[in-house]
């Protein structure tokens, strides 16, 4: 376990070094986050109405609701992108085979390579919320940070399962996974990113409840905006963990099988 954590840290340090060799994106992302937070603030002011306030959870403004939905949806993007990107970059740069002949397994390589994108997403989320709190009154003071951290961990675990499934597809078929884009599209519609699931037609609400994004955003909003503790958010949190328990081992199993297939067909490093 300690060795695995060390291995994961190696990948984080590698990606940090590579990213810091570019520099400017860090500054640009800070500025982009400011514009992003401001956009949500002004959209929220524009669309504010009694009907909207009725549809939102009690005491929540549309600005805080949509900002949390938007920034935490980024974790889904990071999960679905980082594993694929890791695999594609390793294949294109020729580092995939040197990685595979080390003593670290490919699932660890994949998970390790997602640590930095997740850390970067967390930083981006913090900057967005920071701008929101500093300039537009986002209520950071009411958050239950322990619950936020636990929800975040459960979110990362369940979303990682989806990302690993996607990279298994990429390993086998060499091109981007169309179901990834379908999943992103359906999640942005029914996941509760910009509007509550309760305003959707009944059948779409059923789809929403089969999607981990719905539970992740529910639990995160409750912990961050209402200061809800672990007991209060137990239901969405447990469902999220259930997704993780099912998705993670299944996706790693599917990925390992896909890797075996590519070693049989000799297409491991094919593009």
């Amino acid at each position, binding site marked *: 376990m300690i060795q695995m954590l060390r291995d994961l840290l190696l990948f984080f340090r590698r990606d940090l070094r590579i990213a810091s060799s570019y520099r400017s994106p860090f500054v640009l992302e800070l500025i982009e986050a400011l514009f992003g937070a401001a956009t949500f603030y002004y959209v929220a002011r524009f669309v504010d109405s009694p009907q909207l306030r009725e549809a939102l959870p009690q005491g929540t403004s549309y600005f805080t609701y949509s900002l949390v939905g938007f920034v935490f949806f980024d974790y889904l993007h990071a999960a679905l992108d980082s594993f694929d990107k890791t695999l594609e970059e390793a294949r294109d740069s020729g580092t995939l085979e040197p990685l595979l002949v080390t003593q670290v397994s490919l699932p660890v390589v994949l998970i390790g390579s997602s640590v930095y994108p997740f850390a970067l997403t967390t930083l981006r989320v913090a900057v967005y919320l920071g701008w929101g709190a500093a300039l537009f009154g986002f209520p950071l003071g009411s958050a239950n940070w322990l619950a936020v951290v636990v929800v975040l961990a459960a979110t990362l675990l369940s979303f990682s399962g989806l990302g690993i499934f996607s990279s298994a597809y990429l390993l086998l078929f060499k091109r981007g996974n169309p179901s990834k884009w379908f999943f992103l599209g359906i999640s942005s519609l029914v996941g509760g990113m910009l509007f509550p699931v309760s305003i959707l037609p009944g059948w779409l609400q059923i789809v929403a409840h089969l999607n981990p994004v719905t539970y992740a955003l529910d639990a995160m909003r409750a912990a961050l905006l209402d200061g809800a503790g672990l007991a209060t958010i137990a239901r969405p949190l447990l469902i999220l963990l259930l997704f993780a328990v099912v998705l993670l081992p299944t996706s790693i199993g599917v990925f390992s099988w896909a890797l*075996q297939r590519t070693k049989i067909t000799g297409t491991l490093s094919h593009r």
Partner: protein
Amino acid sequence: MPPGVICVCGREEQASLFSCGRQAINTGVSDSAIIIDRLEKSFPRAYSGWRALLQPFAAPSLAALQGISLQVRAGEAVALLGVNGAGKSTLLRVLATLLIPTRGRALVAGFDCAREPAAVRRNFGYHAGSDLGFYARLTGRENLGFFGHLNHLSDSFLKTRIPALAERFELGDALDRQVRTLSSGTIQRLSLLRALLHQPKVLLLDEPTRSLDALAAADFRRFLKAEVLQRQGTSLLFASHTLPEIEILADRVAILKDGNLVALDSPESLKAKCGAQSLEQAFSVLTGHDARALEEPAS
């Protein structure tokens, strides 16, 4: 046994060595570092269009290795010689656990490449013959440190080992420059250094001097012969198209043709048995190929 094979161990001998392979090696009864037993590897045809979706499930039909059996003893250097497509790289990639054989078995340091890949990986160093395989925006030292740590080498070991090898490979300031600024020859030296970093028992090198200039290639061969093979007793299986290199490094030469092993013997014995003046002539006699075919650029 394929017709025309010279001095390949008999099947019975192979089978008995193989059946006791792992125990024998672990107990020191056998000194084989690599045992390859009736190894076959076939690939499926490449599909395009919508049929590409079936590619991962296609049946293997193109034979790259057709029942190869050979051993490499501890401390021995064996060269793989053959024209492009003869199966040299495929054989090395099976041993490096990057391919799973269709039939037959391969053991490295007593561990089965298909069933115990993690154990196999602890025991070999692999150079793929390409000048890719590094992170372009990291320095040579950062790259080597990263891969060294992935082989669970300690910080303190790497801090002494990397500069020592870099000095021996005359890498100079290349170690502290981003890889994207290095020549392909320098990157190839880094790649060879990476293969040697964890002092493996077995070295698998695919065209180790392909991108090196003549001086660097000669220096590398001297280092490999004196330090790695003779002093450390590392076993070496390497593919090469450079006949003088093979004569300098190899104790025995395995000549491959169309995925078959057609000869396995010392360079001198091969020449004597074929009545040839040179290894080039012996190669032509044994394979029917003009030895100039060896110099064709890789496809």
